[in-house]
């Protein structure tokens, strides 16, 4: 049917909206001057880093701002109707019938004490005059539309009985049952694993097409934006700084902030040697430091002029449908950008040094957790002992001075592997050796030299530092305790370490609550490197940081590694970050290693089928890139009772390449097949066949 896009008025029209919160110190402006339109059957992405106000905008549309939030200026029109200033009762009615919200945490929308069926049918029966039976049928239909396996049975289950991805699907089904004109989604897939996220994103696309819904999609992930959004609004420090179609925003960004963001996002395919990530210097201004009469990005902008500091730009329309809050967008060409002097010296592309001797050797490592069985027999001590096989038969080697990236989704065992190496968990079997030390010894019994040489960087910047002590005290502690350094020398060494992570000496006296996320993470790195370790394990060190800060921290780690020839093991779930950062990559699934080798080999064929599915699922921050569309169905099996044979056989999309539909995958454990000396794959499918697969990503 070839009718063109009807020119209807936008479903949502936001004009110069400003939202503030009341606090002890007065009113804080969270959002200032945001304008955008959302049409039917379009997804409008609101993108920005933490603190930019994107969630505030989303909540502000439906006035879910809490007791102390208020819309102080501007207009928000839904279907031509002004929402600002409406009474609670009117808004509630609109919210029920025509606007739906989906949150990051599905349990915010689901009642844990009612069955899913009850909650779904309630949405229908409350508003319409239909029988329970009819409502139930419609609900099952909707569940099928969101690809919920076993829809009829799911109706009788409780929320805690289904997985996170399935919960989110139920929430989306609930949101769509009343056929809303506007759907607001606030980071709905951030908490989900990559493969599950891919399925949910596909779902959102389908539904938009079928129901003509207008969607406002809030996220910080540029990859997701490229995949699902048609139009994008970029927010910075409470203001919308650029609005345009998704192709324009990624292909020809106009605002210096957007251009900066594009430069610090790792793209699948770039290598450590090939491309460098450039962070945006400076910090996001706190709400009270945002000037009203100047461009808020000017302090961090490479192109700022006097005019930028004294006059505030409005959203200027440079091309049809593409606006930018900058006076000079026409004159700035991102191709001509070159890094400033303080960035150049640190980030020269690195040559591949030849691989040294393996410094960490792990062979057939098994770490199991005992599960308390709930049967009566176990009370008497006679029950079956259940184990969670967190790490099962993992063997790998890491050469000195190189980085091994470990990827996998939640529950794959990568964190447990790190904890076992560091000594926080004790292995059940297998050997692990590092510099001649046996790693199966728990940390409390380890030699001081081993502890000095094996340190860890943690994931969450907010909990990596003890809030009661200053930065100087915390970095100094390993020096005093492990290094047996004389107290008078400690302060000097701490300052040297602070400088190495690009923080100046004034940070010595600061408390963690005075630091930003990126700064805290850097202090964590300084603390880990204080004892000059040979091997540093980084457990998702940048996952909790904003994109622009990630780049800075990653570059920092690279520099330190190069300066000290430290070996690193980098655990992450973000495949593009791992690619940028690692020399070798290991892919884990359900406690098993399924593929390991040099990074270039992992990201190009031959692939282990799970790796292929993982790479197909990662959202790439490039709307023009072509990516295979392999999706995994079902959920990750329980680690208490892992599948026989190959752990991936229950979900493998390539199983039918083997005779009998892959019977062998169920009965026998796959062999390790060596593609090259360093690259091996854990699969029954013959290597020649694996080599014939097309690469997952091809960018134009």
């Amino acid at each position, binding site marked *: *049917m070839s*009718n063109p896009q009807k020119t209807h*008025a936008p479903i949502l029209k936001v004009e110069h909206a400003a939202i503030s919160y009341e606090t002890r110190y007065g009113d804080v402006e969270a959002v200032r001057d945001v304008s955008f339109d959302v049409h039917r059957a379009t997804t409008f992405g609101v993108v920005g880093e933490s603190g930019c106000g994107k969630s505030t905008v989303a909540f502000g549309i439906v006035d879910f701002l809490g007791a102390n939030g208020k819309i102080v200026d501007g207009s928000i029109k839904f279907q*031509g109707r002004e929402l600002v200033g409406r009474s609670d009762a009117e808004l509630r009615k609109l919210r029920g019938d025509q606007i739906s919200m989906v949150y990051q945490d599905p349990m915010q929308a689901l009642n844990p004490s009612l069955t899913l069926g009850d909650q779904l049918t309630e949405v229908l029966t409350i508003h319409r005059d239909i029988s329970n039976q009819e409502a139930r049928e419609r609900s099952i239909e909707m569940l099928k539309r969101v690809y919920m396996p076993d829809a009829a049975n799911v109706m009788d289950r409780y929320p805690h009985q289904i997985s996170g991805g399935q919960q989110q699907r139920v929430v989306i089904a609930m949101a769509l049952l009343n056929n809303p*004109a506007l759907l607001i989604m606030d980071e709905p897939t951030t908490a989900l694993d990559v493969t599950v996220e891919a399925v949910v994103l596909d779902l959102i696309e389908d539904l938009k097409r079928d129901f003509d819904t207008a969607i406002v999609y809030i996220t910080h992930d540029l990859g997701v934006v490229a995949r699902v959004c048609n139009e994008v609004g970029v927010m910075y420090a409470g203001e919308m700084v650029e609005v345009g179609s998704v192709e324009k925003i990624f292909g020809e960004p106009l605002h210096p902030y957007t251009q900066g963001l594009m430069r610090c996002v790792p793209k699948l395919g770039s290598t450590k040697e090939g491309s460098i990530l450039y962070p945006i210097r400076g910090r996001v201004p706190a709400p009270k430091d945002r000037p009203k009469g100047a461009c808020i990005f000017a302090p961090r902008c490479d192109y700022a002029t006097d005019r930028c500091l004294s006059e505030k730009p409005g959203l200027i329309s440079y091309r049809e449908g593409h606006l930018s809050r900058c006076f000079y967008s026409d004159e700035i060409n991102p191709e001509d950008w070159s890094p400033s002097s303080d960035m150049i010296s640190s980030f020269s592309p690195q040559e591949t040094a030849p691989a040294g001797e393996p410094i960490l050797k792990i062979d057939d490592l098994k770490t199991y957790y005992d599960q308390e069985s709930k049967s009566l027999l176990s009370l008497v001590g006679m029950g079956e002992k259940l184990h969670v096989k967190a790490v099962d038969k993992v063997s790998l080697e890491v050469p000195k001075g190189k980085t091994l990236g470990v990827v996998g989704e939640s529950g794959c065992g990568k964190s447990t592997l790190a904890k076992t190496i560091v000594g926080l968990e004790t292995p059940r079997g297998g050997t692990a050796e590092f510099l001649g030390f046996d790693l199966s010894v728990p940390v409390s019994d380890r030699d001081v030299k081993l502890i000095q040489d094996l340190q860890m960087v943690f994931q969450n910047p907010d909990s990596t530092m003890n809030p009661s002590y200053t930065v100087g005290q915390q970095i100094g502690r390993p020096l005093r305790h492990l290094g047996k350094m004389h107290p008078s020398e400690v302060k000097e060494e701490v300052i040297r370490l602070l400088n190495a992570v690009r923080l100046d000496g004034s940070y010595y006296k600061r408390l963690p609550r005075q630091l930003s996320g990126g700064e805290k993470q850097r202090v964590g790195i300084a603390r880990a490197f204080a004892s000059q370790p040979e091997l540093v394990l980084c457990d998702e060190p940048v996952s909790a940081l904003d994109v622009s800060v990630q780049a800075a921290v990653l570059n920092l780690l690279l520099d330190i590694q190069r300066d000290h020839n430290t070996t690193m093991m980098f655990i992450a779930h973000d495949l593009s970050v791992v690619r940028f950062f690692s020399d070798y990559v290991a892919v884990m699934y359900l406690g098993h290693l399924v593929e390991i080798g040099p990074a270039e080999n992992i990201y190009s064929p031959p692939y282990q089928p799970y790796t292929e599915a993982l790479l197909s699922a990662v959202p790439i921050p490039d709307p023009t890139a072509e990516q295979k569309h392999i999706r995994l169905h079902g959920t990750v099996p329980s680690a208490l009772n892992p599948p026989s044979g190959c752990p991936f056989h229950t979900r493998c999309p390539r199983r039918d390449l083997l005779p009998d539909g892959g019977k062998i995958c169920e009965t026998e454990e796959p062999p390790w097949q060596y593609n090259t000396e360093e690259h091996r794959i854990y699969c029954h499918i013959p290597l020649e066949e694996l080599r014939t697969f097309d690469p997952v990503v091809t960018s134009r």
Partner: protein
Amino acid sequence: MFVRDYMTRHPVMVEPNMSIVEAQDIMAETKVRHLPVAGEGKRLLGLITRQRMRIPPTELASLNVWEITRYLSNLCVKDVMVKRKNVITTIPDIALEEAAKVMTEEKIGCLPVLEDDIVVGIITEIDMMTLLTDLLGGYEAGVRVTLRMPNQKGELAKATGAISDQGWGIYASGGVKTPKDPGHWDCVIKVRDVSQEDLVAVLEQIEGHEIIDVR
């Protein structure tokens, strides 16, 4: 080719207790001329159109200038709308031409589309126009030829067969009985990947068919 395919989903709607002034603002802001009036759960309660906004003169006759202003500002949608029982509606699964017949016969500009009495969309004259344009291939580039043929079985197949034999694609076609000539039938065909001359050359060959117009 059902109502569901051409209707506008999520139509702009108003509530019965809304003031006329507000309803007018909404009409202006969203550029629509028909507003379904909905209650709880998008249940249809009535319909308001620009024409309906006119106040019957008999109501106003007895009021003076000041009272008129007050009367007008107090006017609610429910005072002016067409009540539900008088609103003609349709359902998504009806053929488009059936809906069009209703609109012509009743001389109305729009039909709210309901499912269980809940408004799921609206189909208007403009949508029918879009359908018409689509049917005749108005949005596509190509050669448009009007053929007059005898009103008999198999004649149309001759024309389409001749075109497809040449490997050309047909975008759209629509036919009607020739006005004032029941023995004949006019058919418009939009063809792509072809030049006017080539197309004319082929269609001229067909016996009994006359090319009325080509552009």
